[in-house]
């Protein structure tokens, strides 16, 4: 009798979790901003879209990406060109914004957080509008998106609602006025749009970032038949230990050269050529400012 009560209570709780259906959402009024496609091209570099949505070395721009192995299965960045059938050409701006910051697609439902909406939710509304304006100009490509290789997609998709209710924070980053504009911009890039934190912060068993260990380093599962990749810590302390001062960080962002003479490769190599290489000197300085100061928490 007592057991039955427990089971019923459990089921009730579970249903309640589902009722939240992915938790709070951030509404972006896409008609309030006139997106600037030129600026959007830069926003796309800040957001690192190319790395996951384009096959490295010669794949068609944003027509779908290389496999991304995770403990939950292998994911393939979908085609996000302006193709109306295989890309997102038939989407509305609001649908795009909903996917980007709320992790919800009008077509497929709740999205998996390998698409880092957990970080993109920090994007400013003008950045979202500019990015959308640019994406609509990307040449259509009719390569079908490759389905993800996960063991039980139906269950996994259904589980995303409670996962998001519990773990997805849709709040924008509140500016910290006591910190410099460069610091705030750096934080916006590292913890928000640039989503450095998604790989450089360790994850718990449910794939949730362990924010108490912010930027203390993570791991990537094995790639190319070889061993897994260890993502280094980039806290102020860890960087100092490896000999990084401001000039070293800037040299690393620009060319990949580490203070010890090594040249960064692996997944960071992709981040360098797809993302950091395209950023303005001011933004690279801002990232350095934020990382070297250590987060104010």
């Amino acid at each position, binding site marked *: 009798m007592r057991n039955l009560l427990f089971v019923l209570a459990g089921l009730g709780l579970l249903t309640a979790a589902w009722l939240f259906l992915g938790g709070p959402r951030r509404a972006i009024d896409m008609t309030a901003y006139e997106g600037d496609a030129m600026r959007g091209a830069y926003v796309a570099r800040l957001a690192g879209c190319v790395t996951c949505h384009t096959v*490295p*070395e010669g794949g068609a721009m944003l027509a779908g990406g290389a496999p991304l192995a995770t403990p939950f299965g292998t994911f393939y960045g979908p085609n996000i060109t302006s193709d109306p059938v295989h890309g997102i050409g038939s989407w509305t701006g609001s649908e795009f914004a909903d996917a980007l910051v709320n992790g919800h697609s009008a077509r497929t439902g709740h999205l998996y957080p390998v698409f880092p909406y957990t970080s993109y939710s920090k994007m400013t509304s003008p950045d979202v509008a500019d990015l959308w304006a640019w994406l609509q100009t990307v040449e259509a490509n009719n390569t079908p998106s490759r389905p993800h290789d996960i063991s039980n997609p139906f269950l996994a998709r259904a589980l995303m609602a409670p996962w998001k209710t519990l773990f997805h924070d849709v709040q924008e980053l509140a500016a910290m006025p006591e910190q410099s504009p460069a610091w705030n911009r750096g934080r916006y890039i590292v913890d928000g749009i640039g989503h450095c934190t998604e790989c450089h912060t360790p994850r718990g068993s449910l794939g949730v970032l362990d924010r108490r260990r912010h930027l203390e380093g993570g791991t990537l599962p094995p*790639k*190319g*038949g*070889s*061993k897994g*990749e*260890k993502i*280094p810590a980039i806290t102020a302390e860890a960087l100092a230990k490896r000999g990084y001062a401001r*000039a*070293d960080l800037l*040299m690393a962002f*620009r*060319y*990949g*050269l580490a*203070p*010890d*003479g*090594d*040249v*960064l*490769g*692996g*997944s*960071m*190599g*992709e981040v*360098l*050529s797809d993302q950091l290489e395209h950023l303005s000197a001011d933004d690279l300085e801002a990232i350095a400012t934020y990382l070297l100061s250590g987060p104010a928490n």
Partner: protein
Amino acid sequence: MPKRQFRKTAFTALALVAALAVSQTGLADADHDHSAHEGIYKERADTMKSFGGAAKTTGAMLKGKTPFDLAKARAAGQLVADKASTIPALFPEGTNAGESEALPIIWQDWEGFTAAAKLLGERAGVLAAAEDQAAVGAAFGAMIKACGGCHKTYRLDKD
């Protein structure tokens, strides 16, 4: 407690005997292979370390940590230019055992791999012939990107 300790000792002894037996069995062959591997792994590591040294010295100048020295920068370029052509020979097929960071894609895409080594040699050659600090800066950046282009695809980054 003593019984447990005895088991532990017995187990260790057994493991040692087994290990010894295994090592004796394939001694001649394994020894030969192993030394060859060690040789190539060490040669490879030494070459990469010498590149790292060259990169570090020149990088320090360009970061303003050490005074600019054109001769040193050109020497760094010359060192890499000379050794870049030996890279393919430093990666015999299947030499990615143990702690090696070499990815198997090296041998699946051998053409791309050797092309990347060739590109490095060419760009290092430009650095070796640089005439002033601006030219060193540009040539060095291009050379380092050639290093990174190869590391991105063919090397596992463990740290």
